[in-house]
């Protein structure tokens, strides 16, 4: 055998190998009493497992699960009993088997020789010869036309698999750029759907809001059934159009854009974080700072929602607010820029630039 076919590591032992240590008999090997005791222990453990299994079945039948069920130290008795008995049934078998191995099975350590991971040189050359013979007989090397067309035909078979994935979902289009907010749509309270008058909010109040269409109404009147948003589409629209209203002292507002889009110190911003899209919810009343609980991005609502801390890269989009003839808060338009997390195709501009474009478009 050549060198490459022996295990090559040489660890150059400095001292002589004292050899395998002497084997010591255990008490269970030499003392019949100890042996019988160990045997009884193992059998008892297996027996305990059976007891646990029976108790498991008993608990299953007798204990009620869920809210109306019995309690045990503040936990559901059914869950605790089923888990502990099932655990016991398995643990006792495991402990028993290991006890058996440790006390009663032969405990002499044996030696096995290692062989190098590689095959022998003869095996290698035989395999290479077989491979060559096979390839030779197939003629794959001599017939490049067959080989290349085969590679090509198998290669393009990827296409059906890839093409099939096309219908996984629609193309993005401009869906991420729009929400259901629209001109004169009322800003209503989340959950209950009631419209809001500026006087309803005191300075410092934060209100979670939605566009009225989410609740299937328009100016309080039910929408025709075709226009009601339902099912998963409702979830999609809610996920984008969620909004927060905050009333602050108008003098606290720093940026002109924010002031122009506010009503009596009430500002409306997208509730969806511009980082990865968590709904932002923690309001610091005295500073007008809004903090996202997921990754702690913090936005200043007095200053165009600009990022003052955390990993978000971009200000929160602001919703232009107005008041309708009945005195309720309404949107003056959809969000002037895409809400939510970044996407590659997103055009990102400063609040001032967005405002300028918005006023040009809407003439406001």
């Amino acid at each position, binding site marked *: 055998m050549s060198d490459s076919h022996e*295990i*090559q*590591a*040489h*660890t*150059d032992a*400095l*001292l002589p*190998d*004292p*050899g*395998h240590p002497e084997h010591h*008999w255990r008490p269970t*090997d*030499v003392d019949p009493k100890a*042996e019988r005791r160990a*045997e009884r222990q193992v059998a008892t453990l297996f027996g305990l497992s059976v007891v646990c299994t029976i108790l498991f079945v008993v608990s299953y039948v007798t204990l009620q*699960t*869920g*809210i*109306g069920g019995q309690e045990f130290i503040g936990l559901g008795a059914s*869950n605790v009993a089923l888990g*502990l008995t099932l*655990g*016991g049934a*398995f643990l006792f078998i*495991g*402990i*028993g*088997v*290991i006890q058996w191995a440790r006390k*009663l*099975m032969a405990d002499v350590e*044996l*030696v*096995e020789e*290692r062989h*190098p*991971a590689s095959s022998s040189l003869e095996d290698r050359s035989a395999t290479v010869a077989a491979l060559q013979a096979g390839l030779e007989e197939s003629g794959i090397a001599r017939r490049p036309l067959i080989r290349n067309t085969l590679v090509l035909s198998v290669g393009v078979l990827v296409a059906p698999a890839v093409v099939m994935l096309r219908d996984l*979902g*629609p193309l993005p289009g401009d869906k991420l750029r729009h929400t259901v907010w629209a001109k004169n749509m009322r800003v209503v309270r989340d959950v209950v759907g009631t419209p809001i008058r500026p006087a309803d909010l005191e300075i410092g109040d934060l209100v979670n809001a939605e566009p009225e269409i989410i609740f299937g109404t328009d100016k309080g009147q039910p929408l025709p059934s075709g226009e009601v948003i339902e099912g*998963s589409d409702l979830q999609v629209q*809610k996920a984008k159009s*969620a909004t927060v209203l905050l009333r602050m002292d108008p003098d606290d507002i720093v940026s002109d854009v924010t002031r122009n889009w506010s009503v009596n110190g009430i500002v409306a911003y997208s509730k969806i974080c511009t980082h*990865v*899209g*968590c*709904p932002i919810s923690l309001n610091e009343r005295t500073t007008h700072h809004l903090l996202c*609980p*997921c*990754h*702690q991005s913090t936005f200043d609502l007095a200053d165009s929602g600009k990022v003052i801390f*955390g*990993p978000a*890269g*971009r200000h929160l989009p602001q919703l232009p607010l107005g008041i309708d003839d009945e005195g309720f808060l309404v949107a003056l338009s959809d969000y002037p820029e895409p809400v939510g*997390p*970044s*996407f590659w*195709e997103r055009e990102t501009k400063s609040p001032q630039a967005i405002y300028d474009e918005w006023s040009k478009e809407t003439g406001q």
Partner: protein
Amino acid sequence: MSVDTSKVATSNTSAATANKPTKVGAAAEWADERLGLAAMGKKNLRKIFPDHWSFMLGEIALWSFVVLLVTGVFLTLWFRPSMAEVTYQGSYPNLRGISMSEAYSSALNISFDVRGGLLLRQMHHWAAMLFISAMMIHMLRVFFTGAHRKPRELNWVIGSLLLLLGTLEGFTGYSLPDDLLSGTGVRAADGFIQAIPIVGTYIGFFLFGGEFPGDAIIPRLYTIHVLLIPGILLGLVAAHMLLLVYHKHTQWAGPGRKETNVVGYPMLPVYAAKAGGFFFITFGVTAVMGAILSINPVWKFGPYDPTKVTAGSQPDWYMGWPDGALRIMPGWESHFWGSTWSWNIFIPVILMPMVSWMVVTSFPFLESWITGDKREHHLLQRPRNAPTRTGVMVAAMVWYAMFWLAGGNDIIAIKLHMSINQITYFLRAAVFLGPVIAFFITRRWCIALQRHDNEVLLHGYETGVIMRSAVGGYSEIHLPISEEKAYAITVRDRGPEGAGEADGPKANGKLTLRDKLRTLYYEDDVEKPTVEEIEAAHAHAAHAVEGGHDDAHAIEGGHDDARAIEGGHGEH
């Protein structure tokens, strides 16, 4: 390979004499005539596995995977992976009458109305935690002891694939119940995907079947979770085991334990009993955890609502690391030509985990490229004997730990009344400085331990017996360590001699990158003593005891005391 069973418990010896035809024998013959099992059995039934507590870590991972398969199959019997809207009418009063997805409703049903259902859910979740932590600790053990070296590099690659897929499996799993917490995780995942430059929006739309949340993501994650990833995991686990059997397990150096052999207990009966028994223990422990330790109480969070979130939203612990990176990353975004590049998301949660995984996966190849060591290794290395490697892994652990802490920055701030901003700024520096400091401390620590080994080899161990000489000086009695221990310590390469040929200087006289790294890798390594040093030290010790010194009597007296102490120490 017969064992002297003359004294082994008699209950255990009868099998050796069973040679008359039995029913079992007939069945075995029937099977062998069709499957040829004997050839395989001959080779493997008495295969030797060495014993060491640290070899059990991989077993925990294996058996918790089995627990996952068993409990998971049961859960699929009741779970409905659908986002169709239903009104909850189950037995949990706080949510009755509320609209939710069928997935969440069936998760509640499993928790409250299926007997043992909550137990299965909690066992499944705990087993997942156990699976991933055991894989990680197993991986650390393998790396610290050099078990990833030739010929086991590919098994390391399989292992790191298992860790990656196990993590994805965990994520897809905890996203399924569609409660507020899991939905928040999916929401963030959608944000991650959209942050991928150029194709992100499209991947997101294809994965979610449109815009977030849509109605496709839960059924799709379900298929990935119960079919795709477990199938691949099963295949990889099988390959991992087969390679383990083929290579034979590594072992620690010791008397009679060499590179060329493996010493331990045979598969049948001892190893099969211990490993098999350990499955029952793992299952049992998981069941007890499921019984008394509440995990992911989905009913407390309520159904997912894209406009809501709970404070302190945290992913499962193994996702805490990229989540932490995401939290402390500065908010860098580039905008040009009408596009948005979200470095603040793409780098921490997409790029960094991928690059880290690739680096970890290629560790064995990088190391052998640097050291030039292409030999087969079957004896484990003590971490101290590879100071650079040990330092690198400890640095990686600190790196991971800092990101992981960052994943809980809000919890730390609340519990310890600290400023979240300060914690974030501190961790931004600590993720870079921490690993560097850890590397140098660990490396020097290893080198100090190598020095200590030599000290013990040459001058014996400290007995704790202090002698006062006639002239008033104090000294401690040292006694030689046992032959076995001394042998085990000295089984190691002498410096970089085991390494391959160096590249040699380049044409411009400078060292190649590889040679530079190799020099750094072995720098300051303390080599084991030479034969001469050991002989000299032994001669010196004998000389001292024989009494050439003024204080010979004292030492001899002390020697007796030390003997007594040695007796008390038991074996050395």
